[in-house]
């Protein structure tokens, strides 16, 4: 069942086109991430979905109901903001009660003093729901505090709580982790993913952090310049990017890109290096060859097809070491992933030899689109 469906969404701010014909279907219970660099329109798309922004054209439907003209509050969505957006003058409990009060109580029942007296039962049930949610999020001891007295992580939970109490059709999250410190962010990643599994509700999550997108989502949509470049499972996006911009954006450290050319036989080559697989379309001309750092490995000098370069920088991440190697007389820099054991032997300024793992290189055409490669039909002696 489709929980959320966006069709042909366009948005212009003055003469600037921010969103350019977005079609997106989110299925029920899915964790979908919109990821892209800042200014790509991902937050605008989320705000259009929330109803906080009206699309210039296109339609939004939630649970099969057309909601393009419906007020944000009536879409039954909950949103978690980057700045948490808790009401600073209310306690955590009051913050969490607000959406329930506004939804479940009449105007008279919301009146201060009189309301709680007249509708004791309704107020009691709201308080009970707030307590239950707070227990799930482990913030039940903070209910009487004001947001100003909470740490970043606690505020984050309070904001999540305010979103959760109303049991919405979907959660919308706009970079909810980017104000947290690095350690907490990584911790909250797994916690959010667990929360999603236990709530079984649709999550639409916006982030510029490709690591968050890769770790948490069922599917991710990579957005750039107001378009969705590629939509798919994180695994698929990482290992099989269909666009050079996707390949560059997803993956840290970045993918190594080398300029090359396609010869008549369909072999992509860069300098002495030639790929065994051939391009299917018979295009000839300039291409870009992409190699992820883990698709390169150090080897002995003189090994067949090895590349030689000078180590100019060494990044030690503990579990992995990334060597920045200057190749082709300094014309290019490649990043090579090595294990700590291999890496410890290599020092800065040293010449090192490495080879690529076969069958992993990606070739992108002049327009940035991925070119399909296939094993050559006639066996050709591999040169590189």
């Amino acid at each position, binding site marked *: 069942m489709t929980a959320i469906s966006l069709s042909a969404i366009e948005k212009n701010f003055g003469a600037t086109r921010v969103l350019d014909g977005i079609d997106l279907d989110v299925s029920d219970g899915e964790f979908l991430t919109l990821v892209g660099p800042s200014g790509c329109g991902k937050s605008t798309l989320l*705000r259009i979905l*929330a109803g*906080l922004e009206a699309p210039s054209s296109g339609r939004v439907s939630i649970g099969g109901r057309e909601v393009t003209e419906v*007020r*944000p*509050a*009536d879409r039954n*969505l*909950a*949103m978690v*903001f*980057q*700045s*948490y*957006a*808790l*009401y*600073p*003058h209310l306690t955590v409990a009051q913050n969490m009660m*607000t*959406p329930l009060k*506004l*939804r479940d109580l009449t105007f008279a029942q919301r009146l201060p003093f009189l309301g709680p007296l007249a509708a004791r039962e309704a107020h009691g049930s709201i308080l009970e729901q707030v307590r239950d949610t707070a227990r799930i999020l482990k913030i039940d001891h903070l209910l009487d505090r004001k947001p100003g007295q909470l740490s970043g992580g606690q505020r984050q939970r309070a904001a999540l709580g*305010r979103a959760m109490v109303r049991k919405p059709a979907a959660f919308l999250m706009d970079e909810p982790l980017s104000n947290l410190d690095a350690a907490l962010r990584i911790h909250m990643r797994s916690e959010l993913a667990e929360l999603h599994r236990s709530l079984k509700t649709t999550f639409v999550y916006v982030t510029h952090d490709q690591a968050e997108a890769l770790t948490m989502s069922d599917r991710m949509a990579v957005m750039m310049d107001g378009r969705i470049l590629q939509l798919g499972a994180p695994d698929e996006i990482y290992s099989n990017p269909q666009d050079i911009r996707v390949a560059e954006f997803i993956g840290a450290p970045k993918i190594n890109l080398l300029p090359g050319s396609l010869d008549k036989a369909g072999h992509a080559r860069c300098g002495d290096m030639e790929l065994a697989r051939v391009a299917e379309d018979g295009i000839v001309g300039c291409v870009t060859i992409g190699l992820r750092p883990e698709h390169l490995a150090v080897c002995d000098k003189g090994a067949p097809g090895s590349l030689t370069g000078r180590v100019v920088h060494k990044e030690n991440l503990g579990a992995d070491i990334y060597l920045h190697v200057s190749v082709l007389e300094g014309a290019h820099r490649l990043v090579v992933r090595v294990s700590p054991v291999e890496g410890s032997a290599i020092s800065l300024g040293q010449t090192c030899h490495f080879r690529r793992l076969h069958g992993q290189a990606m070739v992108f055409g002049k327009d940035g689109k991925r070119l399909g490669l296939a094993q050559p039909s006639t066996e050709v002696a591999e040169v590189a």
Partner: protein
Amino acid sequence: MSDTTLPHSPAVSMPGIRFSSAETLKHAVLILGSLIVLLPFYVMVSYSFKSPAEIMQNTGGFFGAQELFRDDYCVKLGRDLADCMVTPVIYNYTTAFGKAPLLRYLFNGIVVTVSIFVIQVLVALPCAYALAKLRFWGREAVFGLVLFCLLIPVHAIALPLYIMLAKLGLTNSYAALVIPWTISVFGIFLMRQFFMTVPDDLIDAARMDGMSEFSIIWNVMLPTAIPALMAFAIFSVVAHWNDYFWPRIVITGDRSLFTPPLGLREFKGDADGDNFGPMMATATIIVAPLIVAFLIAQRRFIEGITLSGMK
């Protein structure tokens, strides 16, 4: 000033006491300035303690000798001379309350300043919210008009305002004292500047929670804007509590509508000379609430000035 300090001595940032000619000069100028500002207050409070003779001869120091003196008005009424001997300070303050209905004037002052402030807030908050947070055609133009209105001095439009109120038959009423001030462009400007600093996310969160725009103004923006509102309250209350000009114009006959500053005129004697002692006592009573309020809210007041970047 002194050659013991080097010209580039970084005295400001250094802990401990260290002589700095620049700092000394700064403080000397500030002390001189504060003396000039405080002198009238000193005279006012001092005169409110003294007898007429001491005031005229400028004797008696700050408190005066507090010797009994003869109340001529009492004598004129034909009372016994012994009963008409009074202590200056008691005489001054009792006359302040007795000769004119000062309590009534203070009450009027409270009614007028509070109503002005409340209505100003009722108008300014929605205006400021719209100008700061809602996108609509012509918003910048409207804000330009607000800024333009800040430039118009009250006195320039006093006459047309008076004529309008007179035509409506509203002179000599609370309405005449309140209505012209209910739309405060300064308030709109100040609150708009403050609302600009409130994150949009907060408003969006309120919208997602199901609040209407008016509900956002009163339930979200108002509580977050308390510091700015306090600052504005001080500006507004001080200005209208102390206002002499406007009440003088629209309250022509009815003395029961006098505001405290108008009450001071009661002591501007026509035939029997100026009665400085009670007059200064009245002035002291009138400014006392403001000074107390200022001392309580001093920090907010300074916050408010820095907030508006004005004055």
